[in-house]
């Protein structure tokens, strides 16, 4: 089980970071991304709520702080980290705007990955009358942790409304291959690097 195969967005995220930089990974799980980044010379901390994941992260030798996202960020100073990462989690957060603002308060920039609801297979599923279930949306409608369903265009619209600058964007299909055209149609997972307008 290699990270690269399981989480193609990790390679994208790691590619945007440099050795010696600091990173905060929100919802870090067992710390796989932080391990990858530590191996590349970054200093990282994770925020994780689930006790099982916290234990796994400690076993993996990464810095993990047990907390929910909101409380976890509140204690940190402005610009405390070079990067703040929220991978495949934004769609589970109820207070979308607050979390984006907090990420860009404690970090110089933020990296966000999320499943694109407008991916063509998802559109097909809805056209066929069913909620989509896929690699990047692997839940049934009744057990999904996702509370916000949005597309790349929706996200970019929100960034625009909040004065957030999109500095980079990588779009992946279900196999983890880079999508080079018709992103909002062919992209299953979107990864954004965003910052403040300054």
């Amino acid at each position, binding site marked *: 089980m290699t990270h690269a195969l399981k989480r193609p967005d990790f390679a994208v995220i790691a590619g945007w970071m440099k050795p010696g930089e*600091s990173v905060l990974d929100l919802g870090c799980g067992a710390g796989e991304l932080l391990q990858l980044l530590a191996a590349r010379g970054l*200093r990282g*901390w994770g925020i994780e709520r689930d*006790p099982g994941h*916290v*234990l796994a*992260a*400690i*076993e993996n*030798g*990464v*810095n*993990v*702080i*047990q*907390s929910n996202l909101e409380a976890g960020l509140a*204690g*940190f*100073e402005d610009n*405390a980290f070079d990067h703040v990462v929220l991978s495949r989690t934004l769609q589970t957060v109820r207070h979308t705007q607050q979390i984006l603002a907090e990420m860009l308060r404690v970090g110089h920039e933020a990296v966000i990955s999320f499943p694109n609801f407008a991916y063509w297979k998802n559109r097909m599923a809805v056209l066929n009358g069913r909620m989509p279930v896929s690699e990047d949306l692997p839940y049934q409608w009744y057990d999904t942790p996702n509370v916000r369903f949005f597309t790349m265009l929706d996200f970019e619209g929100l960034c625009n409304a909040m004065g957030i600058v999109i500095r980079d964007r990588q779009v992946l299909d279900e196999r983890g291959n880079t999508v080079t055209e018709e992103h909002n149609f062919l992209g299953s997972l979107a990864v954004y690097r965003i910052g403040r307008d300054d």
Partner: protein
Amino acid sequence: MSERSIGPVTARRFVCAEPITLAAGVTLPTWELAYETYGTLNAARSNAVLICHALSGHHHVAGYYADDPKNIGWWDNLIGPGKPLDTNRFFVVGVNNLGGCHGSTGPSSLNPATGEPWGADFPVVTVSDWVRAQAKLADALGIESWAAVVGGSLGGMQALQWAIDLPERVRHALVIAAAPWLTAENIAFNDVARQAIITDPEFHGGNFYRYNARPTRGLRLARMLGHITYLSDDQMAEKFGRKRRPSAGSYGFGVEFEIESYLRYQGDKFAGWFDANTYLLMTKALDYFDPAEAHGGDLAAALAGARAKFLVVAFTTDWRFSPARSREIVNALVKNKHAVSYSEITSPHGHDAFLMDDHYYHAVLAAYLRNAEI
């Protein structure tokens, strides 16, 4: 439990002929610490772990005494072969602090100047004093740096102080159920406890040894009060609720509710063996603990020079030193970009949870220690 016990252990004495000047300004010309060790110090002397005790603890941390097999160390559930703090890998040192009443120089020791017990004249000791004394023991044992310094409650404060005062000598600090300083409410509880002792007529201004007396009433009250703060409301409700003793009378002031019986039993037990002056000193050390004070209240500044990696652990129902207090430590460490993990453990056991044999809690400590390089 016993099948993984370290087995019979021996208490040792470290006698230091080098004077130590305490924060209070008093110099102890010679002094000694009672300590125990478990496991084997490796050739590189790099696998040593120091266990710091809390208010009523001591150096007998694990194992038992051959002539007193029921006297099991207070953290035996954590320390031993194959246990989370694995004595097959680590060389573990337990120590009784200065001012203690279990063999280390303290109020019941003889003051060389008078030939009588120190009593009220024994100086107030601080957490930093303890760290310096423990460092002398480390020197004597040939331990240049600890693989880990571990403690709960007041013991966790010592682990934190070690990382601040002697940063090059601590590689990991495990700060459990602690706080960066005591709140007014914490100090208030401590002072009521002290007043219970000091106003006991048998206290004799701290010189009760001279009168062959013991302020057991005051000490008992102090412990009863303290004990309430170590438990959680939930746990007390579940364990005792409004249950009454079968034999209880009614409309009187005898022991009626189970909680009354429990607290009195705990108070009596404690007052039977603990030294009242030591209790005063330990609570005062808690009150004075505030490493941020010298840095204008900035805990992050106090921790700026720390070199250790940290594990901070708190328990959900601990209201004496709540998780929010541990988060203050974590945030100060993160501000310094220090390595830190924080585990907030769901437990019904209040502050005392740090002593309990909880599977998840011990799994967290074991996982962290497994990654601690020696």
